[in-house]
């Protein structure tokens, strides 16, 4: 072994998440490995770090969600497994791993096996392009945002495979509903991101975050959410992301009182755990994208808080968004399928389309007070008209019930 004099990598609190990668690369160069092996080792360490962080966040979220929902519903939540239920994710993991893996006779076993794997893979891929900190972007792709939406498309096909390969009616119906919902809400999601891309001029996610630095009037951060078109687009992105992740109030495809478990009905044991994990990792991915596009990514909210490591800001903002998802889940009832479709196609898509000229006008009129005066009516007047129309003419017909004895 040749011990070359490679200095120990220096790291600060800011680049602490890079430590596994730096350590692996240092060890490999110390041992004298060829360059390509160092690169592969470093990349694997980076991927391992990201996956490890988000999997532990997933475990934590499953517990936090149950406790939060329980408190909203005036009960306690899991508190048996360890102090305040902190070992509940471990108990859940053991349970999932030791359950019998049942594959129905009429199911196609290959697709039945491939579907949960193909649902987890896009979520993890999408997490790889997220700028998690100033120096912590796992893969800094030039087309990061487009990559994110492309792998989201793979999720829809996997949901179909899960539903069809199960060979029974509930999964089939659940898969059809899930796909129509995901396809319908993917449009407002992408269109609301278009305004951000236009204003930033780049598809690279770290550029989008860097574009949102600085503070107006010394105290208000320059995030995209604090502009009129950004507020509208951010709100639309938020609602569409709840629908994309199949969360309540848009969890028709997996609501137990509606369709048993939708496309996941015939899955048990570890495959169900993979579905669960894919759904939550997808939630992290899309919430992380919302944070990156509209909330300034890893930027600090106040100028004097710049000493805090940037990845802490990213995860703090992510935590705020996810807690708001949990809050909404505990508060709102489930929407019907026709209400869902109507809302997507007749309300979200026109409003999302309006954010694009609003963003263009914002840039052309110089991002000052004139821009506010021009863009706010452009967004508010159609919104008011849509609201009035929804309450009067576009509302779904009231159901008339005829009873047996009339």
């Amino acid at each position: 072994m040749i011990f070359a004099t490679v200095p120990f990598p220096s790291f600060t609190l800011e680049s602490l998440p890079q430590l596994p990668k730096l350590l692996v690369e240092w060890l490999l160069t110390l041992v004298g490995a060829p360059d390509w092996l160092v690169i592969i080792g470093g990349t694997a360490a980076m991927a391992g770090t990201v996956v490890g962080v988000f999997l532990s966040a997933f475990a934590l979220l499953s517990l936090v969600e149950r406790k939060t929902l329980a408190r909203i519903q005036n009960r306690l939540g899991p508190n048996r497994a360890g102090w305040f239920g902190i070992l509940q994710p471990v108990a859940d993991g053991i349970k999932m791993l030791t359950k019998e893996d049942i594959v129905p006779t009429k199911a196609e076993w290959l697709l039945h096996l491939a579907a949960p794997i193909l649902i987890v893979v896009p979520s993890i891929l999408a997490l790889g392009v997220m700028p998690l900190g100033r120096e912590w972007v796992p893969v800094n792709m030039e087309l990061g945002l487009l990559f994110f939406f492309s792998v989201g498309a793979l999720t829809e096909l996997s949901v179909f495979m899960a539903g069809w390969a199960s060979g029974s009616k509930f999964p089939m119906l659940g898969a059809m509903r899930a796909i129509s919902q995901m396809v319908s809400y993917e449009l407002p999601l992408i269109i609301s991101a278009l305004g951000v891309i236009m204003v930033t001029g780049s598809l690279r996610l770290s550029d989008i975050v860097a574009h949102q630095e600085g503070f107006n009037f010394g105290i208000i951060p320059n995030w995209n959410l604090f502009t009129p078109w950004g507020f509208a687009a951010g709100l639309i992105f938020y609602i569409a992301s709840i629908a994309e992740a199949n969360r309540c109030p848009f969890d028709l495809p997996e609501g137990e009182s509606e369709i048993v478990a939708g496309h996941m009905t015939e899955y048990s044991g570890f495959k169900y755990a993979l579905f669960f994990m894919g759904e939550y990792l997808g939630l992290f991915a899309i919430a992380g994208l919302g944070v990156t596009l509209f909330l300034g990514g890893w930027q600090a909210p106040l100028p004097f808080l710049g000493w805090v490591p940037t990845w802490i800001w990213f995860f703090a903002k992510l935590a705020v968004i996810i807690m708001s998802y949990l809050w909404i889940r505990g508060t709102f009832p489930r929407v019907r399928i026709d209400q869902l479709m109507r809302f997507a196609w007749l309300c979200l898509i026109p409003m999302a389309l309006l954010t694009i000229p609003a963003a263009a006008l914002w840039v052309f009129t110089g991002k000052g007070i004139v821009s506010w005066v021009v863009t706010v009516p452009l967004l508010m007047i159609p919104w008011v008209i849509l609201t009035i129309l929804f309450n009067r003419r576009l509302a779904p017909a009231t159901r008339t019930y005829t009873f047996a004895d009339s």
Partner: protein
Amino acid sequence: MIPLLILSPLILLAALGAVWKARPVHAALLLALSLALVAVLYLTIGADFIGLVQFMVYVGAVAILIVFSLLITRPSDEAEEIQRRPRSMVTGLICTLPVLAVLLIALVKGDPLTLPAADAPPLSIARLGELLFTTHAPAVLAVGVLLTAVMIGAALFARDIEKPKSNQPEK
């Protein structure tokens, strides 16, 4: 070159499955697989944008459309298998093999095969965007109008069935 050599047989195998398999859903899913592999091919060549767009549009939209329609138009009995009559396969091969022969002969005899491979011209998004909205702007607008017309037409097709066809007296 090596990624191309690995991907090309896989693409052809998936496409062969899409053409040959009797169960329609299997054929549609194999089509999705072959389109995804073509997207990977574009990514290895260096056309990043085209590869990602291919993935998003073909695998994420067209493949889903196809499987959805297969679900809606499923026959009520379990005999979904397509009985491939030997006569139609022979006719198909008789029509296809000359086309393939013409293409391959043009390939072998053509001069462009001796062109030196240019070192990877990177596909710059800025250049693509600039070209799309200056030189090809009329084409972009035309495609926009086309897609809007397609959307409206498809929505109208789907609505048509809701017109009540019976003349029962209203209670």
